[in-house]
């Protein structure tokens, strides 16, 4: 599975919504329900899924799903 597919599965679980579709251009404000608390859960789930640790500053710099994919893949 590609990184973005795994991210989509995680976010669908967290938002309890299987209609969520992510592209590299997607940002949190494009997705209904992706609020700050959901984002915390999402980042924690990402850490667990990919076995890495994200600093708050790194998370704060992310503008889009594409940025997150790049960050994750840079740690791979």
């Amino acid at each position, binding site marked *: 599975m590609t990184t973005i597919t795994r991210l989509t*599965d*995680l976010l*669908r*679980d*967290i938002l*309890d919504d*299987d209609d969520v579709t992510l592209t590299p251009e997607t940002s949190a404000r494009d997705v209904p329900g992706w609020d*700050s*608390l959901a984002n*915390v*859960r999402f980042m*924690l*789930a990402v*850490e*667990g899924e990919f076995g890495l640790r994200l600093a*708050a500053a790194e998370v704060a710099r992310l503008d889009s799903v594409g940025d997150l994919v790049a960050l994750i893949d840079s740690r791979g």
Partner: protein
Amino acid sequence: MADLHVDLAWLPPAPDTIRDQIKALAGDPDWARSARAIAGHGLGEATLARLGKAIAARLAGGADAAPLLPFRLGLVGNGTLDLLAPPLVATFARHGFALQVIAADYDQAMPEALNPAGRINAARPDAVLVAVDHHGLPIGPPVPGDAAAADGQVADALAYFDRLRTGFAAAGATVIVATIAAPVESLAGSLDRVLAGTRRNVIDRINLGLADRARDGALLLLDVAALAETIGLARWHDPTLWNIAKLQFPTQMVPIWADHVARLVAASRGRSRRALVLDLDNTLWGGVIGDDGVDGIAIGEGDATGEAFLEVQRLALGLRKRGVVLAVSSKNTDAVARTPFTDHPDMALRLDDFALFQANWSDKGTNITTIAAELALGLESFVFLDDNPAERALVRRTLPDVAVPELPADPALYARTLAAAGYFEMAAFSPEDTARAEMYAMNARRAALRTQVTDMAAYLASLDMAIGFAPFDAIGRARIAQLINKSNQFNLTTRRYTDAQVEAMANDPAVFTCQVRLTDSFGDNGMISVIICRDTGVATWEIDSWLMSCRVLGRGVERAVLAEICHHARAAGITELRGRYIPSAKNAMVAGHYAGLGFAPAGDSDGETLWTRSVDAPIEMPPMRVTRSFGEPT
């Protein structure tokens, strides 16, 4: 690598279809049973939350929750509690409850407690969970070195919990209070525990005060402090998450936290497990007693493997002293299986410790059903511990009410895994608990096992077995010789041959040799059987050796092997097979081997029995694919 506690590693991992299974609950007439089965996997926080929401939707729609027991839990505390509700619902389903959570608004614990018409009290919950962490203690900043102020902080905190308790108890709820996990940041290092007024010192004393109240029956204690220490305080407390989201602990910790809540409630409702059924070989000792003998098994101090298994025995013994009933279910000859308990000096467990001792060759689902009937305990009271994944899968499939923990590869972690699963949680302790196991041991008579079959056929088909036959060859020679010289139990003649003899037989046209391998859905079992037949010159093959690993007993391998022998015999112009059983101290289990395969008795002498069978008689093949690699003799 999975973390035992955080990832609930004693539960089987979730299958890939888990999301579809959760979705299917919406239209499932037997949804409550399905939900419990789904919740029986080691689910992460997000999946658990989805399952909890699906369950809540069915309950909100008025669906019948049976066989789940309805339970209403009020949830109060500090910080963000909303996230905890859906995972709690899913986790309670794992423990047999249809949970409804009534969560207080942010930091509204005391107003809810004091208002009989508030959201929590008006909902008449069965229990209220007070989940306050160190941020939520109403005690002000630390007062290091000020003993009087420290006493005041402890008293204030306990008075706070007492007022909460009184308010919710007045509305008829059982009150559950979480202990406080001490923060990581110290003021004086090791002296923190000593010096009055540090956080660690004050929290230690608050927790002891809560424990006193639990002992008096005023409340149920949820020991979050112990859980956080088990996980690691530095992992439990995440300052970033507290700052940005007011999470008491990271979401990864929600599954284990929720399981601790659910097991405590289950215990308070008499729904903990009461009996532990133990396998023997490679579960209570290292090695196979039937092959290795009392001198050859690994148990006891002085050897890393032996100590690992000793820890399992000590844990079982400790549970027995606490009132858990112990029983054995082992694929073994009864007399052989008992010898370590009677003859090995380093065993912690003795025969007296077991209420029932089932060593036989029946499938374990049938055995556990018999044990449950003999003890008059429901299957939902049972835990089954076995190192063999195939046995675990069989019991899970045939007896879904029995808890069957997954075990890691390293036996040193068996005891810890069993303990981490929390099957035997207690909400209170009474002297009768100590006496209970004794009572069962005295009352239970040893069960004569009926050889009834649960749904063996379906189970065998599900194993997706593939059996492979080949003549003896150079690659397999070492393992062939090892099996010939080590197999004691499933061994018809116990004839031992050297490497050189094995090689000679492989090249002898008057000898038919066969090595057998078996793979199944759990992996490759490797070489599991060896057969040697000798041509007697009168259109008859005598089966010189037939032996098999006990690990694949009950799979129908014997019938597939017989069919293979007949196939080659017919090709060689043979019309009849002759079998011989030579009794030894350890091979009683195969005394009926030839009779079971349709051989006719053909005489006996000195305890040996002879059997014959036409190579054309029909054979009922077990559900397995057959591959055959017999080229020219090598």
